[in-house]
């Protein structure tokens, strides 16, 4: 089963399958703790941003994270592994309503809902963030990867801190 396509849009079955696989690989890398695999799902010159809906809708640029290259994504993982102080936690991604919006010369436009459930020591699991991915996907050396990933979260308020990528 791959993602749905926007009404009226013809998307070959195998392409839908491959897009679906990309999102699975994304969740696997982050939920399985294989963080080094996460930057590899992006292009070298990628754009990755996490920002609140409030700023997104007002065209305000500030977000929680803004990476302008795969190198910046790798720097995030290095910090996560080696330099940041944080209480131990597990974050699990639930991605739904994945849809291919358009197939354009500069890539496939896709969107999906995300839900992040966070489990911390001595605490029950909690809803951490919910929102929408707005993505542009391209093919590099035969593999699909993200050229742009905009993670727009619904709530204005982030519980304590965002440690792991959305």
């Amino acid at each position, binding site marked *: 089963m791959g993602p749905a396509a926007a009404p009226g849009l013809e998307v070959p079955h195998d392409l839908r399958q491959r897009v679906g696989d990309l999102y699975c690989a994304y969740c696997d890398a982050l939920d399985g703790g294989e963080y080094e695999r996460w930057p590899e799902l992006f292009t070298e010159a990628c754009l990755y941003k*996490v*920002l*609140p809906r*409030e*700023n997104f809708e*007002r065209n*305000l*640029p*500030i*977000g*929680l*994270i*803004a*990476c*302008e*290259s795969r*190198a*910046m994504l*790798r*720097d995030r993982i*290095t*910090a996560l592994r*080696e*330099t*940041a*102080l*944080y*209480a131990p936690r597990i974050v699990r991604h639930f991605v739904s309503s994945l849809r291919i919006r358009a197939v354009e010369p500069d890539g496939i436009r896709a969107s999906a809902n995300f839900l992040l459930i966070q489990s911390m020591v001595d605490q029950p699991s909690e809803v951490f963030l919910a929102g929408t991915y707005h993505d542009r996907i391209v093919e590099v050396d035969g593999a699909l990867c993200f050229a742009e990933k905009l993670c727009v979260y619904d709530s*204005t*308020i*982030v*519980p*304590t*801190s*965002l*440690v792991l990528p959305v």
Partner: protein
Amino acid sequence: MDTRADAPRRPWPNERWSRIPNWVYTDPAVFQREQERIFEGASWLYVCLEAEIPRPGDFKRSQLGTKPVVALRDGDGLVNVVLNRCAHRSAQFCNANAGSLKEIVCPYHQWTYNLKGELVGVPFRRGYHGQGGMPAEFRMEEHGLQRLRVSCRNGVVFASFSDATEPLEQYLGPRQLASFDRVFDGRELELLGNLRQRIPCNWKLMQENIKDPYHASLLHVFLVSFGLFRLDQRSEVELDETGRHAVLISRRGEQVANEATQEMRNFRADFALEDKRLIDPQREFPGDATVAMQTIWPNIIIQQQSNTLATRQIVPLDAGQFDLAWTFFGYRDDPPELRQRRLRQANLMGPAGYVSLDDSEALLISQWGIDPNPEADMLLEMGGREVRNETHMVTETALRGFYKYYTEVMGL
């Protein structure tokens, strides 16, 4: 701990402000008194930036202590701050964080107020066909929204619940005013965005965190390794006369090991970013200081770290949690490269910031340690027991200053 409001508390330790009893971070009765004496007392409270409400009719929601308010720009171009509570039945009439309107209409019974908060419309005030309506002696002018005193300085909006609060300039004092004016120098500001996080710890720990230069050299690998704020650099901690406000000033250093960095476990001579554009600051302020972190009593932090500028508003929710509301800004006349630097360096700050993440997590584990141990005291003796200005970072003087003033205001 017995957290009933009337539960007996241990007295304040004899060492005064070099010991802080843990119950100030947990006791609901203390929290309630803080609302009355500090937030609703003789204080100027940060509300928002004027750049967030540039045109007549623009509004921005805020919260001062536990009181929700709305800042509005009226037709005369003036900023008004009113309680977000209808004078009729107390409904919270404004539930969008920001926007624009022509008049305020409470959704419940459509009582209508102008942009100064004056009541201008009450449906069926005179009744219908001679029946009902408000009593003849009802005076519209006596039932406006509750307005706060407002003071704006160089694009920053402050409000006060109290008539006893001295003028803002006097409240800050000359040295803190100079530091404030260094960032808010009168140039028009550009809003870059808002972020907000909810941290399950007492609000005072946030003030303490930014008043504490000692932790910054130990905790933050990014500050220490890249020399953005480090104990061996020439620095000052400056307080106002009361001890309630402070500014930590420092100068950027190099990523080289020395006698001081040996005591910093988190100094990493070999630590490097793959994409170095993130740490590429440009000098922009007069003087040689590259970082100035100012804490203004009681609810605002002004952050200038390299080229990233923000206000961080402390919104206390109860004794055990607060919201930190970040407002990132630049100047309207910023060249594109400088604006880009501000946006890149913002990765250091906020709820996922390379630096600030460490702080919010440190605050979290602090409260985890405080809650089960209300009988314990905090120890604040780094750099002595006095409250005074210092020219180094191995000191907790600004925390002692905070509690010197705090105990006076709170009568503890």
